[in-house]
């Protein structure tokens, strides 16, 4: 019950000298590191400027206005267009193969990942063999195999092309039917509208099911609505579909899938799918076992257990490593440069070989790749934030 002693005497401030003061030292260290790094970068920069000045190599971006002096097949690009436009086409091609590659690799990878956990022995073994074989093979080797082996050797020459009616396969391209004389955007909009219709019908049917207790049958109603909107929409727009044909040595009509694009895409999908399969398998196994057991206790079928309970929780876990694989795919697409696919790295190499200064040209390519990676990881982070477990 005694109050603690108080005193009115002044307490001297404890002052550690600056060379022992932790706060000062921390700051001093950071400032030193910053300036050391800055000095190093400035030294590299001055090095580069001196050497290029001595040999007369320009260090600016004026080369972008020069004529490209090479043509890009498949794009409306002849040799008089500017280097800038070549870069744009290269970037578009990189984006194109990345998006398609990501979608296909995710689908294939998820299926194989689930396959590795299957109760069916042969499915399990095949999936394991696939993953172990492909995962341990360098991507360049896979791509060389798809290009030299699959495209050049297996696919026939144009004279002996496999004509499957609406698809023609040859080693200089795969012809598929395509629309013409209509805007692709309109056709795409109809398909998007069909998806919206499916979603709207799904909501309606869920509401009906809640109120009346009858089966929602979303698949039936939604599927029918989807098909209805798609068919009617496209019939109204009236696109003409042209089938591919062989005309001399070329594939006329329809659209031609470039053999380099095909081989690079297949290689990217195969390789990335093997990585994604492992990620998906790991995340499925990370979902608590009790979830699966509870699903069985509720008399859900195996398919329902996987698709309604386990997989949604697994994908939440899988999102960050999946994002990593997507970034890898985007950067791995640069290997297409060795196989005549006109993506960004290839275009950069060609313009440098034709006289553009190397450092600014590759710096520009670097900036584009970094931008693509940032955008992709922004989307992945968005998905992650949206789906992650909210913890206290």
């Amino acid at each position, binding site marked *: 019950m005694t109050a603690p002693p108080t005193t009115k005497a002044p307490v001297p401030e404890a*002052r550690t000298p*600056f060379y022992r*003061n932790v*706060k*000062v030292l921390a*700051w*001093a260290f950071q*400032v*030193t590191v910053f*300036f050391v790094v*800055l*000095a190093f970068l*400035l*030294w590299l*920069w*001055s*090095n580069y400027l*001196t*050497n*290029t*000045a*001595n*040999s*007369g*190599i*320009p260090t600016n971006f004026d*080369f972008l206005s020069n004529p490209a*002096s*090479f*043509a890009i*097949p498949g794009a409306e690009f*002849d*040799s008089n267009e500017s280097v800038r436009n070549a870069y744009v086409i290269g970037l578009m091609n990189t984006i194109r193969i990345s998006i398609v590659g990501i979608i296909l690799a995710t689908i294939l990878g998820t299926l194989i990942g689930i396959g590795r956990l299957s109760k069916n022995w042969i499915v399990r073994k095949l999936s394991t063999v696939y993953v172990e074989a492909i995962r341990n093979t360098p991507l360049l080797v896979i791509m060389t195999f798809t290009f*030299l082996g699959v*495209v*050049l*050797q297996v696919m026939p020459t*144009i*004279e002996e092309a496999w004509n499957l009616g609406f698809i023609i396969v040859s*080693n*200089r391209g795969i012809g598929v039917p395509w629309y013409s004389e209509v805007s692709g955007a309109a056709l795409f909009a109809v398909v998007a509208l069909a998806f919206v219709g499916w979603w709207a019908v799904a909501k309606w049917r869920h509401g009906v099911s809640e109120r009346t207790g009858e089966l929602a049958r979303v698949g039936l109603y939604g599927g029918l609505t989807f098909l209805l909107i798609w068919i009617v929409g496209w019939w109204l727009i009236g696109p003409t579909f042209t089938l591919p044909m062989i005309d*001399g*040595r*070329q594939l006329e009509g329809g659209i031609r899938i470039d*053999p*380099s694009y095909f081989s690079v895409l297949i290689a990217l999908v195969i390789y990335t799918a093997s990585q994604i399969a492992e990620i998906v398998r790991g995340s499925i196994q990370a979902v608590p076992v009790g979830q699966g057991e509870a699903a069985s206790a509720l008399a859900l079928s195996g398919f329902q257990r996987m698709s309604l309970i386990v997989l949604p929780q697994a994908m939440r876990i899988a999102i960050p490593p999946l994002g990593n694989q997507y970034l890898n795919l985007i950067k791995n697409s640069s290997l297409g*440069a*060795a*196989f*005549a696919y006109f993506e960004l790295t*290839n275009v950069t*190499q*060609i313009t*440098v*070989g*034709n*006289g*553009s*200064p*190397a450092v600014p040209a590759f710096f520009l390519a670097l900036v584009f790749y970094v931008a693509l990676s940032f955008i992709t990881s922004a989307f992945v982070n968005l998905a992650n934030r949206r789906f992650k477990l909210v913890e206290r």
Partner: protein
Amino acid sequence: MKTKKLLVVLTALMLVLAACSSDDGSDTTEGGTDATEAPSGGGDGGSLLAEVMDRGELKCGTRDALTGFAVLTADGDHVGFDSDFCRAIAAALLGDAEAVDHVDLETSDRFTALQSGQIDVLVRNTTWTASRDGSEGATFLATTFYDGQGMMVSADSGFAGIEDMDGVIVCVAKGTTTEGNAAATADRLGLEWEVRPFDDNDLIQEAFGAGQCDGWSADFGALVGIRGDQPDGPESVLLLPEVFSKEPLGPAVLDGNDELAQAVNWVVFATIQAEEWGITTANVDDFLDSEDSNIRKFLGATFTDGDGNETTLDAGLGLPADFAYQVIKQVGNYGEIFDRHLTPLGLERGVNALWFDGGLLYAPPYR
């Protein structure tokens, strides 16, 4: 308090230090061989030539698989027309034709290798163009081989000339004048060509052999060598008669290395001049005491000058006086080099003959 004051003082000190280092950094316009430890590209004329001579080895940029021009054999030797010119330059600068480091380069990074100093001289069947002189920072030297672009097709393709090739796929090497010329030629003739570029001749061979490419376009000299290497034999392909561009092939050094540039120039001229006089590896020793004092000056032998003194000619190129003798003795004259590598492929001298035989090879006088 005191901590904050100390932090301010520290930051001020750091800023002063950074300002000092920035001064060194912005010193870009002077010769600057101290501030920059760049491998070469010295900037002041003679330093690369002197550096090569000090080093005792010439770094020559070349390739490993172009029949006739540069092939890496199983013994690890580079054999070919361009390889012999690398040896000639080494024989002149260093007195030893084998003191060469043949650096194999891909087509797409031959110029960056030159710019970065990885190689001293590029002797890799490279075409002399204005933009390479300019923005690639290369200095091209005397042309060793006047070539043109040709087209190779399969013998059973039915093409008799370039004009027949409409709606075809043409495969070329990436980042070469071939690529640009193919596109320009197609535009000019109103033909539709899809030009597919590959980094490596091996890939083009695969694509051509599998029927993906209707035509393989490259320099005519290179195509002659490639024809000889075809897996189904030279009769399975056809070289179309049209030659549709000018491709003067010669060595190149980096801009700013004037003395090395001149030295390489005069090595090439020496091989041409020797052929003009009929000097070969076999008989060069006999020419050392020739009656013609021009020949003796050329070979670095002694001659009697105007005052009656015995002297040798030093043209001030920075080369040893007997450089031409070493080149001829160790490698040979132009005709010998050509006959050794290109004549067996079936290439005629054509425009690569001496000027008095109707060709373009003309050496300025050595005096």
